[in-house]
């Protein structure tokens, strides 16, 4: 037994490409935004299929690093928020390590939701003194 191919990603990729090439040019101006949003939604879904498992592993590893491991995994995100609010990560090496981990996480999530934004933002910030 093997899964059917072409798979979900192939189907979605093709649908997005067709919407862009075949449909979008013929849509009236006041409806173009809807088609563009549909294409964006499909493309985000495709990227999520690729990256979500890795992202979840990365998030769990980071949470394990910054909160007490006696806390059950499902409570760790809230526990980290509580620690930040209490000022436990205000300064020093711990703050730097947490900030690095948070940056890694938002980069990974933005790479899924809006990679174009991420590239422009990274280029902009890297040019600042």
């Amino acid at each position, binding site marked *: 037994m093997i899964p059917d191919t072409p798979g979900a990603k192939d189907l979605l990729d093709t649908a997005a490409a067709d919407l862009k090439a075949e449909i979008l040019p013929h849509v009236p101006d006041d409806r173009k935004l809807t088609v563009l*949003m549909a294409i964006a939604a499909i493309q985000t879904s495709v990227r999520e299929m690729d990256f979500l498992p890795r992202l979840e592993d990365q998030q769990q590893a980071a949470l394990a690093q910054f909160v007490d491991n006696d806390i059950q995994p499902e409570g760790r995100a*809230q526990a980290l928020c509580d620690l930040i609010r209490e000022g436990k990560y205000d300064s020093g090496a711990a703050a730097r390590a947490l900030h690095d981990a948070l940056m890694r996480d938002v980069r990974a999530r933005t790479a899924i939701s809006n990679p174009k934004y991420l590239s422009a933002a990274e280029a902009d910030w890297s040019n600042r003194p």
Partner: protein
Amino acid sequence: MTDLSLTGEQGRAALADYVRAAFGADSVAVGDCRKLSGGAIQENWLVDLEILGGERAGALATVVRTDAPSGVAVSHSRADEFHLLSAAFDAGVTVPEPLLCCEDKAVIGKPFVLMRRIGGTALGQKVTRDPAIGGDREVLAERLGEEMARIHAITPATHRFDFLPGPETVDSLNEFRTHLDALGEPRSALEWGLRWLERNRLPAEEMVLAHHDFRTGNYMVDETGLTGILDWEFAGWAEPHEDIGWFCAMCWRFGQRDKPAGGIGSREALYRGYERVSGRKVDPKRVYFWEVFAHIRWAVIAVQQGHRFLKGGERTLDIVLTGRRPAEIEYEILRMTPPGGGLVDAVY
């Protein structure tokens, strides 16, 4: 059930009759009448009126603004928005002239406000990218600074709005922390940003009337320049720099990262207009603080939109995509708040 809405003859006739009585006219005819697309919180209708007799005789192009089926709790009622718009109009702010406010649901099925229609476009992507509209961009940025200053001339000393929380009770930072907590979604990057705000807060300034959504996308421009400031539904007492930070925040530049004044111009031009009219000096550190706050506020609103999709049954494309925006906003927050980094001048 009777359909009083403006989609039907009955609603249009009721609107005409209401306007006739309010303006002391002999008769009012409703011509073109159509709903504008968009507007998750309000519905806007373009309504052409032909008025015979009375103080407003002649053709009158208007906008009728009503609540959409799903209002947002923190936004004002149409009547409150009318009071704020009227105060701004009287203070010389360029806004659509407020004409009538009807709180009687018996007329068109829900309360509504009638405003004089203004020309141009408000679409952020178009305003920031199309050089054919808006006129010279530095002039536009300076003009917007002047307009904001005129709004900020409305203060608790000059005006009373009983429907607004008192200026002494306003705490924007805690308000959005409370909104975030209510969502029950632990978001560590936003928590980091909120903590940074808490640690870098400066003593409060005097309170003024803030528009609270003064940004590209909420003003209209035509080929010559500004035609009006829109969307007064969130206005309230706040520190003046909060509006400046919201206008300049990266999330409202529509991709024009090198144009800090709303994706259209320079900070210098915006500040110049603001300082000249207000007589108040812009403090670049306070602007930086409120830009960080602006990103947190917008991220919380985006998370709320995601919840409207997931739990509120509003399954539309624009809402679901807004629900995926927080990641990029959190990126900006973290970049602006490195460990050990405090308040700096807003430059970029």
